C-alpha cells in the first residue's frame, strides 16, 4: 500500500521537465525581491537556462518512454514533439521580451516566472493521459496567460485584453468540464486509454453521450485554438496584450490546445468520428474564411496576425477532419512551423512597436526594407512562410494538410482551403509591399538598432522555418511515427 506513495525514479524522469520548470519558476519569484532594478534581465537569463535544461530533460525522458504516476501522464513521441514546441516558444518569448519590458519600464521577475508556469501548464497538457490532468494543465496555462495579457497594468488596452480573455476563457473552460463530466458519465473513467477501451468493448456504445461530449469539448478547445465560431475574442485580445505575450499566446497555448484536441479526438472520440467530422469540417471552413477575409481589411498589424491566426487554426482543423495518421502528423508539423513563423513575425512587431505600442499599424513598417534590410528580410521569410511559399516550413505544412485532406476524400474542403490560402496571400503581401516599396515612415526613419536578444528571437525561428522548408523529412518522420503510435 505504502509503495504506491513513492514514485519510482523512472516516473520522476518522465515528468522531469515540468519539475525543473516549476522549480525554476518558484526560484525566480524568490530571487525577484533580491535583484536590483537594473539586473532584472538576469532573471530572464535564468528562465531561459531553465527552459534549455527542460528541453534536455525532454530528450532524456523521450529515451525512456511510457506512462507514469498511475498512468496520469504518458511520455510518447507525440508528447515530446509538443513539449519541444512549447519550450521553444517559451525561449523565444523571453528573448523577444527583454527589450520590450525595459522600454515599458516593467521588467520584473514575475513576468518570467509566469511565462515558465504557463509553459509548465502547456507541457502538462501535452503529456497528460487523463482528463483531469488535462484540465489542470489547461487552467495553469490559461491563468498565467490571463495575467500576462494584462501585465502592463497601467495600459488600458492590456486591461481590456486581460479581462476579455479571462471572462470568455473561463466561460469556455466550463464547457470543457461539462464534456469531461459527460465522458465520465458515459464510461465511468477519466483515463484516456480506459475510456477508449470502454467504448470499444461496449456492445452498444453510448453514441449520444459521446457525441454531445465531443461537442462540449470542441467548444472548450475551439475557444482556446480560436476556431470559428469561437474566434471573436482573438483580435481584441491579441491586439490589446503586450506584443511578446501575444506572440506567446498565438503559439504556445494554441499548440498545446491542439495537442489535446488531437489526443482526445483521435483516441477517445475516434469511434464516433463520423458524428463529429461534419462539425470540424464546418468549423475549419468557417475559420479559414472568416480569418482570411477579415484580415484583408486590417490596418493594425497585430490584429491582422490575429485574424491570420484564426485562419491558420482553420488549416489545422482541416488536418483534423482528415481523421488519419497523416492528418495528425500534418497538423503536428504545421503547428511547429506556425509557432516558429508567428513568433518571428511578432518579434519584429515588438521591435517596431515603440514605447506604448504606438506604431503597430502596417503602414508604420513602411521603408523597413531600406532602413533595416536584415530585419526586413527576416520578416519577409516569415510572411512568405505564412503565405505558404515553397522552401519555407509553411509551404510543407499546408502541403501535407491538403494532401491528408485529399487522401481522406475531402476534395471540396481541400479546394476551398487552397482558394483561401490564395486569398490570404494578399494581406501578407501587403506587408511586403509596404516594407519594400514605400517611403520610410516616421517610425522606421528613427528605428533604433536591434539588440542581441531580439536578434536571437528573429534568427532562431527564421532558421527553423527554412530548415522545415528545405529538410522537412526528419521532423515529418518523427511526427508520423508519433501519430502512428497515438492512433493505436
Amino acid at each position, binding site marked *: 500500500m505504502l509503495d504506491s506513495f513513492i514514485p519510482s525514479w523512472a516516473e520522476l524522469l518522465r515528468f522531469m521537465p515540468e519539475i525543473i520548470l516549476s522549480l525554476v519558476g518558484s526560484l525566480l519569484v524568490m530571487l525577484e525581491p533580491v535583484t536590483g532594478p537594473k539586473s532584472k534581465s538576469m532573471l530572464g537569463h535564468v528562465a531561459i537556462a531553465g527552459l534549455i535544461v527542460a528541453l534536455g530533460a525532454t530528450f532524456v525522458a523521450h529515451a525512456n518512454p511510457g506512462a507514469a504516476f498511475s498512468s496520469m501522464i504518458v511520455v510518447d513521441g507525440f508528447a515530446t514533439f509538443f513539449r519541444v514546441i512549447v519550450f521553444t516558444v517559451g525561449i523565444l518569448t523571453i528573448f523577444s521580451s527583454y527589450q520590450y519590458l525595459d522600454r515599458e519600464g516593467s521588467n520584473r521577475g514575475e513576468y518570467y516566472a509566469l511565462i515558465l508556469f504557463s509553459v509548465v501548464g502547456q507541457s502538462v497538457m501535452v503529456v497528460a493521459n487523463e482528463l483531469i490532468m488535462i484540465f489542470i494543465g489547461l487552467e495553469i496555462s490559461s491563468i498565467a496567460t490571463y495575467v500576462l495579457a494584462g501585465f502592463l497594468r497601467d495600459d488600458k488596452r492590456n486591461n481590456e485584453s486581460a479581462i476579455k480573455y479571462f471572462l470568455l476563457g473561463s466561460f469556455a473552460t466550463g464547457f470543457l468540464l461539462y464534456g469531461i463530466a459527460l465522458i465520465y458519465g458515459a464510461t465511468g473513467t477519466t483515463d484516456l486509454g480506459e475510456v477508449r477501451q470502454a467504448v470499444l468493448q461496449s456492445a452498444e456504445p453510448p453514441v449520444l453521450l*459521446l457525441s454531445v461530449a465531443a461537442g462540449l469539448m470542441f467548444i472548450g478547445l475551439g475557444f482556446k485554438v480560436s476556431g470559428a465560431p469561437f474566434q471573436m475574442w482573438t483580435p481584441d485580445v491579441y491586439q490589446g496584450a503586450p506584443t511578446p505575450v501575444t506572440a506567446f499566446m498565438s503559439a504556445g497555448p494554441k499548440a498545446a490546445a491542439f495537442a489535446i484536441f488531437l489526443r482526445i479526438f483521435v483516441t477517445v472520440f475516434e469511434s464516433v468520428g463520423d458524428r463529429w467530422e461534419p462539425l470540424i469540417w464546418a468549423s475549419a471552413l468557417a475559420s479559414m474564411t472568416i480569418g482570411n477575409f477579415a484580415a484583408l481589411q486590417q490596418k493594425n498589424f497585430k490584429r491582422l496576425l490575429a485574424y491570420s491566426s484564426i485562419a491558420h487554426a482553420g488549416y489545422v482543423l482541416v488536418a483534423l477532419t482528415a481523421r488519419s495518421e497523416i492528418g495528425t502528423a500534418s497538423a503536428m508539423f504545421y503547428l511547429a512551423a506556425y509557432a516558429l513563423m508567428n513568433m518571428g513575425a511578432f518579434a519584429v512587431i515588438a521591435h517596431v512597436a515603440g514605447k506604448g505600442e504606438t506604431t503597430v499599424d502596417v503602414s508604420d513598417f513602411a521603408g523597413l526594407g531600406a532602413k533595416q534590410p536584415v530585419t526586413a528580410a527576416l520578416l519577409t521569410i516569415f510572411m512568405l512562410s505564412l503565405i505558404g511559399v515553397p522552401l519555407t516550413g509553411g509551404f510543407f505544412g499546408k*502541403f501535407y494538410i491538403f494532401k491528408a485532406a485529399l*487522401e481522406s476524400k475531402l476534395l471540396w474542403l481541400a479546394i476551398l482551403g487552397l482558394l483561401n490560402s490564395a486569398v490570404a496571400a494578399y494581406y501578407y503581401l501587403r506587408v511586403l509591399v509596404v516594407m519594400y516599396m514605400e517611403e520610410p515612415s516616421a517610425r522606421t526613419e528613427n528605428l533604433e538598432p536591434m539588440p542581441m536578444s531580439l536578434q536571437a528571437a528573429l534568427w532562431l525561428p527564421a532558421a527553423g522555418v527554412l530548415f522545415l522548408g528545405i529538410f522537412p523529412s526528419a521532423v515529418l518522420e518523427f511526427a508520423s511515427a508519433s501519430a502512428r503510435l497515438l492512433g493505436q
Partner: protein
Amino acid sequence: MQQLWLIPTFPLLGFLINGIFGRRLPKQAVNAVAIGSVLLSFVWVLKTLSGLWPIDQPHIERYFTWFESGELSIGFDLAVDRLTAVMLMVVTGVGSLIHVYSIGYMSHEGGYYRFFAYLNLFMFFMLILVLGANFLLLFVGWEGVGLCSFLLIGFYFVKKSATDAGNKAFIVNRIGDFGFSLAMFLVFVTFGSLDFDKVLPQVAGYADTGTITLICLLLMVGAAGKSAQIPLYVWLPDAMEGPTPVSALIHAATMVTAGVYMVARAAPLYQASPAAMEVVAVVGLLTAVMAATIGITQYDIKKVFAYSTVSQLGYMFVAVGVGAYSAGIWHLMTHAFFKAVLFLGAGSVIHALSGEQDMRQMGGLRKKIPITFYSILFASLAIAGFPFTAGYFSKDEILLAAHHHAPWMYWVATITAGMTAFYVFRALFMTFFGKYRGKEHPHESPLVMTAPVGILALLSLFGGFLNVPQWLSPMFPLDGGAHDLTLVAISVAFGLAGIGLAYYMYVLRPELPGQIATSLGGLYTLVYNKYFVDEMYDAAVVKPLISGSRQVLWKGADVGLIDGIVNGVGTVARSVGGVLKLLQSGNIRSYATWVVMGSIIVLVAMGVAGGGK
C-alpha cells in the same frame, strides 16, 4: 555525375553576394558578380550538355530525399533531357545577354545592386523550374519566379502604378498556382508519386480519363496564370511597369513560357485526354486573336509588345494543344530571340528618349539610332514570319499542325498572323519613319546595350535553322506530314499583306488611321480599352470581394470595439468601478452571447448527429 546542381547554384550565390553585400560594393563588382554568375551557369550548361551528348536518355541526378511521408517520397532531383536542354540554352543564353544589356540600361537607376540581386534570384528559380525532376520541384521554381517577377515589376516603387501592377501579377498568379497545386495533389493521389519518370509512364495504362482530364485542366489553369492566357492574362500588360530588361527576360523570353514548358513536360497526360488538349488549343487560339486585336490599337510601345507576347504565347498553346509539342517549344525558342530584341530595342528607344514610351511622340528615329532600328527591323521580320527568318519556320510548323488538327484553326491563326505583322510594323513605322514628333534629343545607346541586342537580332534572323523538332523527335515523334507549300504560301502572304497595309497606313497615308478609328466608333473604343476586361474583373470580382468582406466580416464579425474603448470610452478603466463598467459595456456580453449561440448550435448539431443512428 555532371553536377547539375551547380547550374542553379551560381545565380543563387550571385543573389546572396549582391543581396547581402551589394550596398557596399562598387558598381563594377556588382556587375561582375551578377553577370559572372549567370555566365558561369551558361558555361556549365554547355559543359553538361556536351558531357551528356547526345542525351538520348533523360539524365537524372538524385541528391537527397527531400521528404518522405507514407508512400510519397520526393527527392531533390534534377534531370536533363532534350526538352530541358533547349530550355536551359534559352534561359541561360538569353539570360546572359539580357544581364549584359542591363548594365547599360540600369546605369542611372537607384537600387542597382537590388535589381541585379533580384535578377539573379529569378535565374535561380527559373533554372530550378526547368531542371526539377518532379512536380514539386517544378512548383518551387514556379512560385519562386512569380515572387521575383512581383519584386521586379514593383521595382520602380515610387510609381504607384508599378506597385499595383506587381500586386496584380502576384494575385493573379496565385489563382493559377491554386490550380497547379490542386493538380499536383491529384497527380499524387492518382499515381502515388510526383516524379516525372514515375508518373508519366503510368498514364498510358490508366483508364480513368475523367481524372486525367481534370488534372490536365487544372494544370492549364496554372499555365494560364503563368503564361498569361485567357482568362488570367490581365497581369502581363500591366507588368510592363517594370524595367525593360525585366520585361524582356521574364515577361517575354523565359518565365511566361513556363506554362508551355510545363504542358510539354506533362505531354503524356495531355495525350491521354483529347478533351483537355482541345481546351488548351482553343484557349490559346482565342488568346492569340484577342491580344492581337488589342495590340493593333495601343500607342505605348511596350504595351504593343506586351500584347504581342500574350498573342504569341497563345500560338504556343495552340501548338501544344494540337499535339505539336516540338513546334510549340521551337516557337518558344525563336520567340525568346525576337521578342527579347523587340523589348530590348524598345528599351533602347525609351532610353534614347529619356523615358518616353508613347509612339505618338516618336517618329523618324531610323537615322538617329540606326543599330536599334536594324535590330528591331530584323526581329519584326521574324515575328511577321518573313521567309527564312526564325519566326517563319516555327510559326509555319504551328500553322501546319493546326491545319492538320482542324482547318478552321489554321485560318484563324493565319489571319492572326496577318494582324501580328500589321501591328509590329505599325509600331516600327510609327517609331522610326516619318518625322520626329518628340522634344527630347535622341542618342544611340552604348555598346554594352547594342551588342546583346545585335546578337539576339542575328539569332532572330537565323535561329530558325536550329531545327528543334528534329532534336526533340525522340521525345515528340514527328508526324511526318507533308510540308504543304500552299498553306505556307498563304500564311506568308498574310504576313506580307500585314506589313504592306501598315506601310500604306502609317507611312504613305498617316492621316488614315485616325479616320478609320473614328469611323469604327464603338468597336474601336471597345478594342482600344482592351475589351474592358480589367473593368469587368474589377466590377465582378474585386469590388464585391472587398465590400463583401468589409460589410459582412468586418462590421459583422469584427466589431473592433477595442478602438472605441481606447478612444475614450474606457477613460475610467483604471478604477475597480471602471473594470466593472467594462463588463457592463455590452461588449463582452455580446461576445459571450456569440459563444453561447455557437455552443447551442454545436450541441444541437452533435445531439442530432449522435441521436440519429
